[in-house]
């Protein structure tokens, strides 16, 4: 079994861009939430700027000149911003189009229809019906995943797409925690109070993990628990641990199909084992930021190792 | 005569490029006027054998150098037995038919000046062979040999109008003029032993071949105003200099390219 290297790369990036579109929708959802109740000494605009930072779009906005509306539009519909939702769909669809034959008809048609309907994301809709727009984006992504899940052959191509999704998701979760880590530092606990709680829960909103949190911890919010859920809890589908569990599975499947193992297999397994050996207390003890920086670097390295191993 | 030839072409890339592909027509064909006794072509020290023989009767090799490519050195060397056949090409295994050599190329499109030159060659009448010699004389007279005056992309009309050029320009003008008369004509690249050059550091040479009724292909070298002799070695042919290039390259990457060509040609046994 083998696949055209470009096909593998296109599937990998198609999945990454779709995941990025969805992550962006969640971040926008979080932004809308925190902006309604800004922290003390902070404006709604500051909150939106921090969303842009979490989305990796800080370089794209002029921090002084951009209004709230400009930031929202920039994150959702601006094609000039390569990470906007519209751009991500555009690029995912371009990747998919050049490997159309590697997708099922149903999966392709789902993505193509999303692309055809991008025009519906008008400026006024984005500004006045933001929650509906976010829901639409999440819905389209879910529909594609459903179509792909139900119809794609479980071959190497499927795994390349899956790896793209997981690498992107791990990156998003890690970066979100990193941008927000000051909110989660233990010192802020001293301040306590509702605004902080609001900040913490907004992180859970951005990862669609609010309900999961209640189920797992059933108690008050605390930074340790939030970080534990998103980093180390393997049952939370947006957690770092979950992503690496799945990455290892996908890579193992590829190793079986190809009869060969590469550096990426070793790295991913080592990362997963390290996650298993980590206690949340250690993370805070040695420094959350340092931990995240290292994890983000490792995730990028793994992405390159996968590309090298499979010649794309 | 036996001629010993060493033809080295070196491309340098700064910065290094990802890959360089070269297409080589560096294998002198065998026909009545020449016979290679020993001949090798190497790229960066690796011997390269031809893959097929094209319609012109020339053997062609394609070779790729990949990785961080900072330099590509192509060396063709060997000994060729030559005979003076008065420029007539006999016994070449070729499939291209004369009629194919009537088509103009961007470099050999005739303008009114070239057409007038061609008609001038006919004025004194005589046989077609005599007229062809007259055409050669005219081109020799109108275009002084001067290096650096023209470049590889210079067209025949520009070369004639400028009145100076190198062997490529002479050949292009002869070809364009001949085709304007309905005479099939082609471009030939090769080597030439110039007595006055002392044998070292000359570049490759080029001349035209015209199809003359009843005789066949005959070489005309307007740079030297003579038909090829046993001092000539024929490498390859084509519709013009671009088509008959002994070396074509394709570079993947964006390094600045520097080129250095050396041809050493001596009577065999007289090598330094």
């Amino acid at each position, binding site marked *: *079994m*083998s*696949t*055209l*290297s*470009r*096909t*593998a790369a296109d599937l990998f990036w198609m999945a990454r861009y779709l995941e990025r579109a969805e992550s962006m929708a969640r971040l926008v959802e979080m932004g809308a939430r925190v902006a309604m109740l800004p922290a003390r000494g902070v404006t709604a605009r500051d909150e939106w700027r921090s969303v842009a930072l979490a989305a990796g779009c800080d370089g794209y906005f002029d921090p002084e000149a951009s209004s709230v509306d400009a930031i929202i539009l920039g994150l959702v519909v601006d094609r000039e911003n390569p990470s906007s939702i519209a751009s991500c769909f555009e690029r995912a669809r*371009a990747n998919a*189009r*050049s*490997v*159309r*034959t590697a997708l099922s*008809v149903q999966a*392709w*048609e789902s993505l*193509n*229809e999303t692309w*055809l309907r991008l025009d519906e994301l008008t400026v006024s809709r984005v500004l006045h019906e933001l929650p509906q727009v976010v829901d639409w984006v999440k819905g389209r992504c879910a529909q594609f995943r459903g179509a792909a899940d139900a119809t794609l052959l479980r071959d*190497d191509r499927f795994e*390349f797409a899956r790896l793209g999704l997981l690498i992107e998701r791990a990156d998003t979760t890690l970066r979100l925690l990193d941008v927000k880590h000051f909110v989660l530092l233990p010192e802020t606990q001293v301040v306590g109070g509702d605004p902080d709680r609001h900040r913490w829960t907004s992180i859970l909103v951005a990862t669609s993990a609010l309900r999961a949190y209640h189920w797992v911890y059933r108690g008050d919010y605390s930074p340790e628990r939030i970080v534990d859920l998103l980093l180390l809890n393997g049952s939370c589908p947006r957690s770092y641990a979950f992503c690496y569990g799945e990455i290892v599975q996908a890579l193992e499947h590829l190793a079986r199909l*190809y009869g060969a193992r590469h550096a990426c297999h070793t790295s991913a397994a080592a990362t997963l084992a390290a996650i298993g050996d980590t206690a949340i207390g250690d993370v805070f003890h040695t420094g959350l930021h340092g931990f995240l920086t290292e994890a983000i670097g490792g995730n990028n390295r793994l992405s390159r190792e996968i590309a090298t191993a*499979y*010649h*794309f | 005569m036996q001629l010993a030839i060493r033809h080295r072409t070196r491309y340098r890339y700064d910065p290094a490029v990802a890959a360089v*592909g*070269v*297409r080589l027509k560096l294998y002198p064909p065998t026909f009545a006027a020449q016979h290679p006794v020993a001949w090798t072509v190497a790229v960066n020290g690796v011997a390269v054998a031809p*893959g*097929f*023989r*094209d*319609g*012109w009767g020339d053997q*062609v*090799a*394609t070779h*790729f150098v*990949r990785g961080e490519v900072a330099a590509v050195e192509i060396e063709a060397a060997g000994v060729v037995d030559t005979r003076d056949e008065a420029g007539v090409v006999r016994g070449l295994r*070729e*499939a*291209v*038919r004369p*009629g*194919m050599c*009537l*088509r103009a190329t961007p470099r050999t499109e005739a303008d009114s000046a070239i057409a007038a030159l061609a008609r001038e060659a006919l004025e004194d009448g005589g046989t077609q062979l005599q007229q062809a010699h007259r055409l050669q004389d005219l081109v020799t007279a109108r275009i002084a040999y001067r290096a650096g005056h023209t470049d590889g992309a210079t067209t025949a009309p520009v070369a004639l109008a400028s009145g100076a050029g190198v062997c490529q320009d002479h050949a292009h003008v002869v070809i364009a003029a001949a085709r304007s008369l309905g005479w099939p004509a082609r471009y030939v690249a090769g080597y030439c032993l110039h007595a006055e050059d002392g044998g070292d550091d000359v570049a490759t040479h080029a001349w035209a071949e015209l199809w003359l009724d009843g005789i066949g292909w005959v070489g005309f070298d307007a740079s030297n105003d003579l038909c090829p002799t046993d001092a000539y070695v024929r490498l390859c042919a*084509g*519709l013009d200099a671009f*088509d008959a290039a002994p070396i*074509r*390259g*394709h570079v*993947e990457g964006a390094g600045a390219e520097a080129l250095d060509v050396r041809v050493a040609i001596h009577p065999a046994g007289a090598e330094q």
Partner: protein
Amino acid sequence: MFDEMNGDDGARPPYCGVAHWLDTLGLATLDGKRREAETLFRRSGITFAVYGEGGDPERLIPFDLIPRVFGRDEWQRLAAGIVQRARALNAFLWDVYHRGEILRAGVVPEALVYRNRAFLPEMVGFDPPGRIYAHIVGIDLVRTGPGEFRVLEDNCRTPSGVSYMLENREIMMRMFPELFAGNRVEPVDGYADQLRATLEDMAPRHGPRAPVCVVLTPGPFNAAYYEHSYLADQMGAELVEARDLFVDDGALWMKTTRGPTRVDVVYRRIDDEFLDPLVFRPDSYLGVAGLMDVYRAGRVTLVSAPGAGVADDKAVYCYVPEMIRFYLGEAPVLENVPTWQCALPEHRDHVLTHLDELVVKEVHGSGGYGMLIGPRASAAERAEFARKIAHDPAAFIAQPTLSLSTVPTLTPRGIASRHVDFRPFCLVGRQIRLTPGGLTRVALREGSLVVNSSQGGGVKDTWVLSE
């Protein structure tokens, strides 16, 4: 004017089923179905990009629901003529790249071939596998009467449109199952398998494993990209771009997740001049450096062969009936449209004095561009063409304005007659394979004779009845 459905006394026999179906369906239902079909096409991404025209870069070709029907006997005669032509064109190509017997015999002028831009000296003396150059021959036909078919043009390079033949049928079968239940229509869905078999036939080496065939596309921005990906998918072949391929060690390789994989056959949908920057245009990014030499060394097969275009030139076209006699010793089954070659002085004079009744075409033009329809053109347009012809006569041919047959078509104002042409696709490998069907193009504007999709033409499903 000949209408293929409506004869003097009711529907002509092949169309009886369709006529009855139209009567029972009613216009409103038909219009609803039309919209449904358009949604289906758009959702599956079947589009045809037209460049330099602005607007939607992924435009749909309008699909007309009313099928075009050939009876069994009509098809048999057409098929014989198509196959005959495909054989003669390939014999011609082999000949002109070798000894040129037809030129020596004075049947076809030497200059027309040797000085043709599509003639490639790089192919001289080379024997492609099976001596086949044009593996997919698309022959454009028009009908002017019940038994009168004429060839308008041959396409020997990479004729496009076959995906529409296949998709149109899929859509029709999905939307009108009852229609197919009541008519015996020959299936067309074997085409992709036959194309694959044709490609595999042409592999330079035959070993224990199936040859690796790929479809080489210029990429997603090409107008026919949909077709490239569709055919690759249907054949189970990789759809590759130049950057997926490379030459090394005298062979062609594609880059896969397992490393390089040897390629045996390339169905290339890029033009000759872009194939190989080491041989043709040095600035080509669509081709693969070294490809031609691997091909000439017999280590990969290109489909179609470079230089095959010299057989479908509009001036060479005039001589196809002569080719059929010369190579096959047969009388042509299908006739040409009478054609004046402006290169010939007496023809040119006729053309210039009859511009108002002729269709003038550029010899190297295609897609309905660079064309003058004399009777429809303004005096200024005709004068412009007269100047162009005088300047470069060999670049033009002229033909009478034919009265193309019509087929009922759904228009915004009900069902009306619209002119059609027909392009069947003939596959030439070690054997010749012809799918019973083809692409029917329809000029959607009333009275228009231009059916090209780039000029607002539409398409129809084409039926060949099996009884």
